């Protein structure tokens, strides 16, 4: 059975994971190893007057003053208006978020290190905290960085003639959206262990990272070491999601302390540190205006996006990746001619923003998908129809959109059609129409009164449509979309027998994956990923060794890279060993992020394995007494056209142990190949999908149950469909967390309020639906094997699908949710507000 591309091969790494034998940073042990605990700032914004270390702890506590010569983390960018920040690994002068590291304490155990940390006395002068990103933009707001004259890391502006479109548009939809601050919450948090290797004279850093080579570069840069003096090893890593693709201040300070003390030191992030001081992400605010014609065809989009990026700019991706991506990706899969967008990356007294699975796109997808549905309601049409009609059609591929994104291949409308069929939209609409009001309406605390309060007669949908068309004649002001609400309400009916309201929602996105040199260059980043390299070797035993500087941390790359090699070499994955994550053993790679692993590392392995296959055929041809062009590789053997064959082991033995069997003019490059790879067009290849959800909302308590959830995806060639499905389930689960549950809250002084999993709620098995997935394969014309990235994709769409479904369900109540997570409290507050104000005169919807 083939174990190459397309095979549902069980993951190679699962054997050790399922047996509990994987080795994470926390599992490592070295003689004389001590543990680290940090003294962290209790205040969000303060000047440091003094740090007092009790005499008895001398030599056990280190502060910024001890770290002479260590540079602050500084992520440069060439983008105009960008201001870099200096992020010292231990705070110097000021603290800028609650949880910022101030001192590093060491002891034989973590508990003892925490005892010491408690006794370090911080004398802080509290400063006004900058918490709300909109308030932080105003002149006169307190400043996070004293040397700046405002709180803006970056502003960007793309102009478009929206005003003239507005005048002729049949409908103009205006919305304000908010997405919550989140944490990524991988199963394993950050962890780093540093020690000095006397023999090699190297600082060896074991760290839970997606990007070992980048960390080596960063550590060398900020510690002032030569890269040759640093080795970084990422052992087993329990999830990354982007949190582990940036250099953490703890990686620097623990490495420095290990060099200073000559002792192996380890810090393992605990859950409270993770939830309060790390991995902050996702917090966006949108003001969005969409202009459309009477059928809902988008004519223009005007957006103002504010991203709350926290106190510091992370290295290497900066505080601006998010807003740059948001501005560029908002139009998404839609064919749009006029676009105007202003973005603000605002500094606040919160932990620095890190790129989380989907980077910006979960936010822009949420904003855009809710807007599409709002437009559909405004013109009184089925949102799935309006969505499909606005997408870039298959015939237009490859297509360069209004922001210059080059979409390589695919049939976007087909994904809507697929999801529509899977979720059975007609059946859902029929079910909504069949739903009957509760008997007598007497027994329900809420739903019934809310329905009863809508005393106006239901308007005739057709009449409403006429009004919209007539509006152009009157032309006093743009029609508000909400005039259409009642048209949909009439169709969607009332609560079901259990009092719950059913709704259906769709969400479509396209995701730029494996974007390379030109794209990252345009973002002005200090590091631009280009070629990815891989080494493939036929070992003396006949085994194949694959070495990649990328890393596998749950996404299955250890298996899928083996499958690529298997495809090229005709040998089973059980005979292929993949080594990753160690800068001492692998070629340079900027690492695993931006859904680039399969395309880039996969491409490099493919190319190297192809070269190796050529060499194996050549050596085998000598042994088989035939021409290399008459030798093919399959079943772990080199087979001559006539039927004779030699095993890979025979070929390897000849080269390594019995060169006397080979002719004198043998190719001395041997059986080890390193190749570099970059797609022909490296502006990224675009994966796309449509998700659809059916929800039941209990209007009495604001709860949401996802009754059905489907994904219709296309990521080009699937290397391992089973791993891909796992990625999709996991991504969608995270997206559902974004939609309904997860929220990092801060009070007005910047104190984190969600410091444990009791307060920061992630969905569990009981909250997640049984998802169904279907795929098409639109191969990319630009990559090896037509592969596109998919690692992030499924996390992007759920908020749009779920909240569109909620709004569909709540439309009879004249309620619209435009903020996530859509918690019971938020939904209930909106319902109560709508009830309190009674039937609204202008038909305008309310959101909390």
């Amino acid at each position, binding site marked *: 059975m083939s174990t190459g591309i397309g095979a549902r091969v069980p993951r190679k790494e699962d054997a050790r994971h399922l047996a509990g034998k994987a080795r994470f940073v926390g599992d490592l042990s070295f003689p004389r190893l001590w543990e680290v605990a940090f003294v962290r700032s209790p205040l969000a914004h303060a000047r440091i007057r003094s740090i007092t270390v009790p005499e008895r702890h001398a030599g056990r506590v280190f502060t910024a003053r001890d770290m002479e010569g260590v540079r602050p983390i500084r992520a440069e960018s060439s983008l105009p208006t960008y201001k870099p920040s200096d992020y010292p690994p231990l705070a110097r002068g000021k603290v800028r978020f609650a949880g910022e590291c101030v001192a590093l304490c060491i002891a034989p*155990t*973590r*508990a003892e290190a*925490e*005892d010491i940390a*408690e006794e370090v006395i911080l004398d802080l002068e509290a400063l006004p905290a900058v918490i709300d990103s909109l308030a932080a933009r105003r002149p006169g707001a307190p400043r996070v960085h004293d040397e700046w004259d405002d709180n803006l890391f970056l502003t960007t502006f793309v102009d478009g003639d929206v005003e003239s479109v507005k005048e002729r548009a049949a409908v103009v939809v205006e919305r304000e959206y908010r997405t919550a601050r989140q944490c990524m919450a991988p199963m394993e948090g950050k962890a780093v262990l540093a020690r000095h290797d006397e023999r090699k004279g190297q600082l060896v850093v074991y760290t839970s990272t997606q990007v070992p080579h980048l960390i080596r570069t960063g550590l060398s840069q900020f510690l002032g070491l030569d890269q040759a003096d640093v080795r970084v090893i990422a052992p087993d890593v329990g999830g990354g999601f982007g949190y582990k693709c940036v250099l953490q201040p703890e990686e620097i300070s623990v490495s420095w302390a290990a060099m200073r003390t000559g002792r192996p030191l380890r810090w393992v992030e*605990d*859950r*409270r*540190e993770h939830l309060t001081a790390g991995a902050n992400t996702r917090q966006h605010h949108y003001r969005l205006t969409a202009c459309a014609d009477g059928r809902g065809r988008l004519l223009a989009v005007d957006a103002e996006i504010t991203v709350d990026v926290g106190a510091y700019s992370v290295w290497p991706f900066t505080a601006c990746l998010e807003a740059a991506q948001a501005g560029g990706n908002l139009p998404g899969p839609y064919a749009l001619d006029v676009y105007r967008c202003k973005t603000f990356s605002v500094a606040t007294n919160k932990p620095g923003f890190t790129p989380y699975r989907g980077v910006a796109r979960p936010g822009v997808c949420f904003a855009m998908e809710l807007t599409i549905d709002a437009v559909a309601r405004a013109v009184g049409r089925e949102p799935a129809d309006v969505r499909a009609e606005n997408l870039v059609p298959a015939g237009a591929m490859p297509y360069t959109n209004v922001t210059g994104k080059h979409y390589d291949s695919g049939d976007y409308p087909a994904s809507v059609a697929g999801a529509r069929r899977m979720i059975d939209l007609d059946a859902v609409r029929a079910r909504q129409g069949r739903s009957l009001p509760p*008997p*007598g309406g007497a*027994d329900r*605390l*809420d739903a019934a009164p809310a329905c009863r309060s809508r005393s106006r007669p239901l308007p005739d949908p057709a009449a409403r449509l006429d009004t919209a068309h007539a509006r152009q004649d009157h032309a006093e002001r743009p029609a508000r979309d909400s005039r259409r609400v009642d048209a949909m309400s009439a169709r969607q009916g009332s609560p079901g027998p259990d009092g719950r309201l059913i709704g259906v929602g769709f969400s479509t996105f396209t995701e730029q994956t494996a974007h390379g040199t030109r794209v990252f260059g345009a973002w002005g980043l200090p590091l631009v990923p280009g070629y990815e390299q891989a080494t493939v070797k036929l070992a003396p035993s006949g085994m194949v060794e694959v070495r990649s500087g990328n890393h596998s941390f749950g996404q299955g790359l250890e298996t899928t890279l083996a499958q690529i090699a298997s495809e090229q070499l005709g040998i089973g994955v059980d005979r292929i060993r993949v080594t990753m994550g160690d800068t001492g053993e692998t070629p340079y790679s900027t690492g695993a992020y931006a859904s680039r692993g399969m395309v880039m590392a996969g491409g490099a392995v493919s190319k190297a394995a192809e070269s190796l296959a050529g060499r194996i055929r050549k050596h085998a041809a000598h042994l088989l007494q035939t021409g290399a062009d008459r030798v093919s590789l399959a079943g772990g053997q080199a087979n001559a056209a006539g039927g004779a064959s030699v095993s890979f082991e025979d070929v390897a033995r000849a080269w390594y142990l019995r060169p006397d069997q080979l002719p004198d003019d043998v190719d001395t490059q041997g059986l080890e190949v390193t190749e570099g790879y970059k797609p022909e067009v490296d502006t990224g290849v675009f994966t796309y999908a449509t998700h659809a959800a059916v929800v039941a909302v209990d209007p*009495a*308590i*604001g*709860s949401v149950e996802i009754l059905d959830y489907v994904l219709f995806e296309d990521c080009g060639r699937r290397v391992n469909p089973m791993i891909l499905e796992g990625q999709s389930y996991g991504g969608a689960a995270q997206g559902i967390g974004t939609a309904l*549950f997860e929220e990092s809250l801060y009070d007005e002084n910047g104190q984190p309020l969600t410091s*444990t999993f*009791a307060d920061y*709620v992630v*969905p*569990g098995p*009981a*909250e997640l639906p049984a998802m169904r997935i279907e795929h098409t394969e639109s191969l990319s014309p630009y990559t090896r094997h037509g592969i596109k990235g998919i690692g992030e994709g499924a996390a992007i769409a759920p908020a749009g699908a779920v909240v569109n479904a909620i709004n569909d369900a709540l439309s009879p109540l004249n309620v619209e949710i435009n903020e996530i997570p859509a*918690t*019971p*409290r938020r939904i*209930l*507050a909106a319902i*109560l507000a709508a009830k309190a104000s009674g039937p609204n005169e202008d038909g305008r919807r309310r959101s909390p």
Partner: protein
Amino acid sequence: MKPVDFTYHRATGLDDALEHLNAAGEGAKLLGGGQSLGPMLNLRLARPRVLVDVSSVAALRTVEPARERVTVGAAVTHAEIEDRPVSDVIERAMREVAAGIACRAVRNRGTIGGSVAHADPSADWPIFLVCAGARAHVRGAAGARDVPMPGFIRAAYTTDLAPGEIVTHVEIPRAGGRARFGFCKLCRKAGEFAEAVGAVLIDPERRCCRVVTGAVGPKPVVLADTTRTLAATAMPPEPDAIRAEIAAVANEHDPVKLHMAAVAVRRAIDRALAAYAPSHDGDRSGSGARTGLTFQSADI
């Protein structure tokens, strides 16, 4: 997130536990299943010098079903109550409450006595026990005493326990054969602490009725007016009346929280009454079957 240094003592009996508890004075803390104390230790919110583990004290692990009442030892776990179909006080009420606590891993270790002594305002057992009219039995150096549940819990995380005292068991009156229990717990996620809880007992034989609101305000409270209306009419009071009473007794003014609390109470009442609803055709109010259910001078 590692605890402060402490001494751990696994008590061999009740006297041994009391002795160690008293010897350590203020710095001692009792450990039951550790499902609340464990995280509090790790967060260093609890900083005991001595932990006295009573989870395996035999005297605290007994269940004694009697005709009039059931006593449940403090170290009996949620899972043991969930798995023990016999000797429930009201139908399957205790099983239902136990099965709704957190997740099975927590239920395997968490204890009813620990829940009562910890007095989290959202915890299930205190709410149930107030509703069921239970008494908490405690023992200290000065001897044993028992306290009715509403009074035992004084405020959030605060009980009537004096220093050196241990909750030994809870005593729950057995309800009559026609008694019905209704419980409604609203939480964001399966197994999370509740945002609002309603608990209702209707016991015609004993002329006893209680409607309790929990997870709102500092402790579970019997809603006296709502209870009287329910007892007198066998019908739920108007939503606004329930809401107003919760606002008053729990000193809660957040409209969303109040609304949830009122819905929880209302649904608990509906669930208790639903047991009396006879049929799906015709008599939707269930008033026929509820004949004889009302009692003017109910014991709350």
